[in-house]
């Protein structure tokens, strides 16, 4: 049977803020997807999709001359003597990190014969999310549909795929994707109106890791590979590959806006709605479009792992 597990108001301490070598501060969507996968695996279910609802984030660091300076919270991991500083043999050297405190809610669509709320709660109590410690969360519930789940959370920001905006802008301006990407993330509200017209509803455009592209063929001959464990806790031969994160455009959209979209009064003469806001209108009508799924792309040679909302 298909159900929606709702875990409201998860608070995480010192999660990882680094999305990839290119970006700090992308929403931890990939972490959430794999976290959900692990959670359902440990509690006897199958995961069919997630919705990530952002509430708050506190970045640990400061600002200097307009640049974000992440706090260096710890030294490098101690493996052996080379991790020590060359200048001071008693101190560990530093490998830079960036951390943040997170506050978010999670909806997980599952297929399950039975749902053990207490097992889920027990898992959450000891679990880590994106490298950070889960401090607290509200009561876990199993509900019947996404609408029910979202109305339990009520406020916050859901994450929406905005590949369409990147493609539209790159084509319209005849830019290559990197220029389109960087400009889109920097456009002011006036700039967005200049480019897309009135009421584009594009506030809170952002980016995050939406998948991995393998850099080489799967390798079964490497040593030192982390082994996966099967259901009987036996290690199994695991292939390995180096991969690069695929950074894509997303948007934080207020839940309130989606659940209660602005309705024009009948007396008002409304301008034609902005076509770039079409995905938001569609989602207000069919909330199931919010689910994020993961899959390996077969048509591209089978070496791309993608999160998508289709």
């Amino acid at each position, binding site marked *: 049977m298909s159900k929606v597990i709702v875990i409201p108001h998860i608070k995480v301490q010192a999660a990882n803020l680094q999305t990839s*070598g*290119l*970006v*700090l*501060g992308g929403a931890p969507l990939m972490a959430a997807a*794999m976290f959900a*996968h692990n959670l359902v695996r440990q509690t006897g279910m199958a995961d069919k999709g997630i919705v990530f609802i*952002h*509430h*708050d*984030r506190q970045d640990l660091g400061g600002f200097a001359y*307009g*640049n*974000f300076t*992440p706090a260096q919270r710890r030294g*490098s*991991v101690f*493996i052996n003597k080379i991790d020590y500083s060359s200048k001071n043999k008693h101190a560990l050297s*530093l490998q*830079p990190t*960036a951390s943040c405190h997170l506050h978010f809610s999670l909806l997980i669509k599952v297929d399950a014969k039975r749902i053990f709320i207490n097992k889920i709660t027990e898992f959450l109590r000891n679990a880590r999310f994106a490298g950070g410690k889960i401090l607290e969360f509200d009561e876990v519930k199993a509900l019947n549909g996404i609408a029910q789940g979202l109305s339990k959370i009520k406020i916050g920001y859901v994450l929406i795929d905005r590949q369409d905006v990147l*493609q539209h802008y790159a084509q319209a301006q005849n830019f*290559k*994707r*990197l*220029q389109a*990407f*960087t*400009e889109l*993330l*920097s*456009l*002011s509200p006036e*700039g967005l109106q*200049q480019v897309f017209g009135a009421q584009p509803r594009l506030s809170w455009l*952002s*980016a*995050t890791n939406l998948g*991995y*592209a393998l*850099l*080489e063929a799967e390798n079964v*001959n*490497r040593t*030192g*590979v*982390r082994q*996966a464990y099967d259901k009987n806790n036996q290690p199994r031969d695991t292939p*390995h*590959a*180096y*991969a*690069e*994160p*695929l*950074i*894509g455009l997303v948007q934080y959209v207020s839940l*309130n806006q989606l659940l209660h979209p602005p309705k024009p009064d009948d007396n008002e003469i409304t301008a034609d709605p902005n076509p770039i806001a079409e995905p938001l209108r569609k989602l207000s009508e069919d909330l199931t479009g919010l689910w994020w799924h993961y899959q*390996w792309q077969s048509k591209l040679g089978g070496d791309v*792992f993608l999160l998508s909302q289709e």
Partner: protein
Amino acid sequence: MAALSPDIPIEDYEQSLAESVHFSVKTINTNIDKGGIRLSQDQALDLPFISARTLLADGVRIPTDYTANAGKTATHFKVIKAAMTDDAVVDAKGNPDPELQLMADALASSIDQLFDVPYQSGLEHINLRMRQLLIPKDGSYISLSPITAAGVNYWLNDEVDAIKAQRKNNENAKRFRSPITAVFGIGGANPQNAGSLIRAMQRPIYLTAPTANEEVSQAFRLFYRGFDYYIPHKITIDKDLTPALIKWVHLIKKDLKTTAQDSRQPWQEEGVFAGKTDLSRRNAELAFLRQIVRNVLAQGKKAKQTLEQVKDKLPQITDEDNANLDKPLKALTPLLHPSVDLAIQGLIDPNLRDDGWLQEFSKHLARQIVRQDYQIEGQSEPVSFPIDDSAQGFLARRIRELLYTYGELV
């Protein structure tokens, strides 16, 4: 072409070029043994994402880097990098260096061939410091080690600089906000030991996220759930009234219990909660209750102010069934969700204070008053007293009277 200097054999440059990589494991942790991967052009991936493989689909040449600094490597890469990014080779002062420029031009054809086939080195064993993620695949798992190409950072920095330059140009000044970058100290004081492009990786872009605006979330909490008002523990009344107040407390303790236990007359059922009293006790009682009521009403007023601030963001719950289609739908309770306790609704919104509210609120408040004990302020020795539970009905009626009489409170 002028003769190349014999001091700088081109074979060495070509060797360094052949061993250069797009992805170096030292970018993850500089203590990992050197190694890396170079992509071939046919690994281009045409998807709407930013990564090395997708940039290849745009025909971008992603500069490669050395896996570790040794001997003349850095010198070689000064030239190689310039050749790859079509920059001029300059010396430390920024003046063009013609000899090295010749070298760069000579490498052009080798560079063209560099991306014909993929290349990797030093990756037979995975160092413990390299991160590995188990990703589900085909019913089992594959271990992936995520890594970013410094060459992509190089081009990203270019774009960021271009936007900053546009902002300085007055025409486009308002079109962009300044992109924010982070200071990420890979390589520490000697990043060139990890790679010549490491400096580019020291400035990733930084993305903000919506933060919980405390006022707004507080307002929404009020909207959906109302609030729990508090009753002050410390009571400040005229010193002269204090002995009377103590007597009053004894009174309600003793007399009300008697009334409650009186089997002959159903006083409580009739709503009679009285005991004997006198003027001084009555005054003390009024002072006590008035202070509490004023305090609680003030809390309600503050809650209303918080809600007023976000009034236009609040969902409007309308009575759609009884809608008169000629008139616009009016919200039933504009500042609060209809499911909030009636007593709290009227406390927050004076427009909802009808007779029904008076009853509800008085009962509600009386219940809260008997739940805690009190200390009288201003006494040389603290005097504290609880109020007995049986006083609830009595207090509720007194509070109702108070609210009726003092019209300005309602």
